[in-house]
């Protein structure tokens, strides 16, 4: 009973910390992207200033919209995004709701924010938002398949470990690091899956080159075009937290290592070291999956995005799965 109460008490703390971390990483991403394009760029704290400013602006509701749904969608998107983090190994610790949900649950929950965003766009009665909503849904259907292949591949590897239970759980992934479960061929397959996961990251966080659903210059922010003020602030935070969520999933699956054991630390020093190491791993994943992609590529059309995820990402992920299975028999 005491444990349950403590867990529930930690939920808002983790949620608040995730919002801060999400905005902080967004600041880093924007700054680094600007540096890579030979621009000065905004300071790292700019996203916090953006949110503060948005909270002071008017929250306009279009007159022909379905008002209750239009107003509820941004909050719903952020709330559901934050619940995903409760099932993830944030900060190098076991998931807060450990034993109450696994990778399959996380993949399902990842649908909620996109769905909420789409509903908000449709309910706004704007053509731009409606087109943005359609694109968001199409995009969502596109990257689910490679994601599912990654989950199945990793679970297949872990289920082969003697005495291993709950192959889809992040605790099992942390105890049985996937790279140690296979030979060179399987490792090559895992590396391919890691690359595929990195390609899904910008799709999930709706950033370049997969931001066709909001396409500023074409759709005037798409699903968000009618949003302003505090509602827009919530959507802005949602995008930042989504990036954090998916980067944590990648870290949890592919880089679940801690550094405290290596340094011979214990107690509080170990906790601090592991948390700092988690932040570094997060930065690495976000840099490879988001900063580099945002700086190097321009926006893809929605048809190109679908082709990219269904043909190239799915094809590569199946190749990765094939190599892992082959590696298991050789």
């Amino acid at each position, binding site marked *: 009973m005491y444990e349950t109460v403590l867990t529930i008490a930690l939920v808002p703390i983790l949620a608040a910390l995730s919002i801060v971390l999400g905005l902080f990483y967004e600041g880093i991403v924007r700054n680094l992207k600007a540096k890579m394009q030979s621009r000065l760029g905004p300071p790292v704290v700019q996203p916090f200033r953006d949110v503060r400013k948005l909270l002071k602006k008017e929250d306009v509701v279009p007159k022909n919209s379905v008002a209750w749904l239009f107003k509820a969608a941004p909050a719903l998107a952020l709330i559901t995004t934050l619940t995903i983090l*409760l099932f993830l190994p944030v900060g190098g610790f076991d998931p807060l709701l450990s034993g*109450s949900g696994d990778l399959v649950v996380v993949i399902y929950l990842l649908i909620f924010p996109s769905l909420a965003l789409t509903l908000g766009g449709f309910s706004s009665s704007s053509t731009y938002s409606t087109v943005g909503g*359609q694109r968001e849904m199409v995009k969502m259907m596109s990257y689910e398949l490679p994601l599912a292949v990654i989950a199945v591949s990793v679970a297949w590897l872990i289920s082969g470990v003697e005495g291993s239970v709950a192959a889809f759980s992040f605790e099992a992934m942390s105890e049985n690091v996937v790279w140690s479960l296979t030979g060179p061929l399987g490792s090559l397959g895992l590396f391919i899956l890691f690359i595929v996961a990195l390609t899904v990251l910008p799709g999930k966080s709706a950033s370049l080159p997969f931001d066709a659903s909001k396409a500023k210059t074409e759709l005037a922010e798409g699903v968000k075009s009618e949003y302003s003020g505090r509602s827009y602030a919530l959507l802005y935070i949602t995008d930042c937290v989504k990036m954090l969520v998916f980067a944590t999933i990648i870290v949890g699956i592919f880089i679940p290592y801690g550094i405290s054991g290596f340094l011979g630390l214990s107690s509080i020093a170990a906790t601090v070291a592991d948390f700092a190491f988690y932040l570094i791993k997060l930065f690495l994943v976000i840099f490879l999956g988001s900063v580099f992609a945002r700086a190097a590529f321009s926006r893809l059309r929605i048809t190109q995005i679908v082709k990219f995820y269904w043909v190239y990402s799915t094809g590569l992920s199946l190749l990765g799965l094939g190599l892992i299975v082959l590696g298991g028999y050789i």
Partner: protein
Amino acid sequence: MIGLETGYGNWSPIIWLVSLIVIAVLILFLRSLGKKDYKKEGGKDEEFFSGNEPPEEGFRGDYWGFFEVFERYYKYMEKMHSGLINDYMLWFLVVLALIVFALLVRSI
């Protein structure tokens, strides 16, 4: 634990729901810090339409986008929905036969 335990994974919707409510309180508090009202003058609440006059019939209908994009699919599906009970029974028998076939193949 109240929930689903498959042996390969687990899922407890009650705990998720409780957490969702706790986070909802936090987010609604954050939302309440923002400005609540807005002045309606100056056509602020008109839908954005690149500075043009919005069409008279408006953009109403939450499924407008779906119908537009999936037009070919809907037309195809409409043809299948003939309204004749014989057609529906035929579909039912075909699907049932496929399921039985799949079960038989699995049991071999």
